[in-house]
C-alpha cells in the first residue's frame, strides 16, 4: 500500500507542476488566480496521502487547515487585485 500512496502522491505533484505552466503562461489575470484553486485541491490530496503513508493522523489537521485557508488567498486575489470599483476599458481584449 505504501508504494501506492507514494505513487499517487508523486503523480499529483507532477500534475501540480504541469498546472503551474498555465499559471506562468497566463494569459489573463484570472488564469493566474486558478492556481489557488489548483493548489487547494491537489495539495490537500497529497497531504492526506502522506498522512496515511506515514501513519501520522496529525497530518490530517494540516490538510484541514489547508482546505480552510486556500479560500482566503483566492478571495484576496479576487478582492484586491481586481477591485470591483475600478472597472475600466483597458482590460478588454
Amino acid at each position, binding site marked *: 500500500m505504501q508504494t501506492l500512496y507514494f505513487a499517487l502522491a508523486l503523480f499529483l*505533484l507532477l500534475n501540480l507542476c504541469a498546472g503551474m505552466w498555465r499559471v506562468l503562461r497566463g494569459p489573463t*489575470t484570472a488564469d493566474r488566480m486558478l*492556481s489557488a484553486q489548483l493548489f487547494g485541491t491537489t*495539495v490537500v490530496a497529497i497531504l492526506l496521502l502522506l498522512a496515511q503513508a506515514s501513519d501520522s493522523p496529525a497530518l490530517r489537521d494540516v490538510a484541514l487547515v489547508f482546505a480552510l*485557508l486556500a479560500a*482566503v488567498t483566492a478571495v*484576496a486575489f479576487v478582492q484586491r*487585485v481586481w477591485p470591483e470599483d475600478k472597472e475600466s476599458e483597458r482590460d478588454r481584449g
Partner: protein
Amino acid sequence: MLQWAFDTMLGFGLLWLAWRALNSSDLFKAIVLFIAFGLLMALAWVRLNAPDVALAEAAIGAGLTGALLLAALARLGAMTDQNVSGASAYPVPSAQPPAGSHFSRGLLILLLSASVAGMAYAIWSLPSYATGLSMDVAAHLDDSGVGNPVTAVLLNFRGYDTMLEMMVLLLAVLGVWSLGGLQQQPEKPVAAVLETLSRFLTPVFILAAAYLLWVGADAPGGAFQAGSVLGAAGVLLLLSGWRPRVRLMQWPLRLALTAGAGAFILLGLLTLLLEKQFLTYPVAQAGRMILLLESLATVSIAVTLAILFLSVSSGHKEKSGKGEKK
C-alpha cells in the same frame, strides 16, 4: 525509491518556483509563484516529519502571506498608477537586473556557487546521527505540563523566546502604525456569494483555531498555529467588507494586542516571586499556566496579524486611488 523520486521532485519544484518568482518580469506573476512556493514548503515540512511547522506554514503561507503581498501590490499599483488587472500587470522596467558589467555579474555568480558548494560540504560533513537536544527534552517532558515536545519547548523550556517573539509582533504593529496609522474605512457591500462564504467559514475558522489550541498540548498544534488560523479568519472578514467598529479600535484593540506579551511578563514576575526564577512554572500547575498563556498569545497573534493586514491593505487608499485616474 518512490519516496526518493517524490523528495527530489519536491526539492526541484521548490528551487524552480523560487527562481521563477524572483526573476519573472511581472510582479503579479512573481507573487503568485511565491505563494505557490510557500504552499509547497508545507509539503516539505510534512516530509521532514515536522507536522507542527507544516501547520504553521499552511496557516501563514496559505492565508496571510498571499493576502498581504497581494494587498500591498494592489496599493502599489494604485499609487504608481499602473494598470493592475491587465494581462501583464507589472512589467516594471526596474524589475530587470541593473546592467552591471559582465565581469561583476560573473564574479557574483562565482561567489554564490562557491558559497552553495561550501554550505553543501558543511552539511555533508556533519555527523549523520545527532540527537541534538531531543533526549533532554524527552527526559523533562513529564515536568513540562504538556505532552507535545514542541509546545513544551515553546511555552516552557524556551518561554523566553516566545515572550520576546510576542514583543517582536508588537513592535511590528507599532512600526506599521507609526508609518501612518489606521484609516477608518466604510463597510463596502460585496457579492452575495462572498458574504455567504465568509459567514459560513468564519465560525469554522474559530472552531479550527480552538481545536488546534486544545490539541496543541499533546499533538501538533498550539498557540502559533491557532493564532494564524484566527488571524486568517480576520483577514477573510476584512476582505469581505467587514470593518471593526470605531469603539473596538480603541482600548479593546490595544488590550488584545498586548495580552500575549503582558501575560508572559506578569506570569514571569509571579513565578519570580514564588519560585525565585523567571518563567519557571511549578510542576503541578504547569499545564494550566501553559494553556492560559497560549490562549492569550493566540488572541494577540491573531489580532496582530489581522491588524497588520488591515494597515498594509488600507492605509491611504482613498486619497491616492481617486483623482489620479487618467
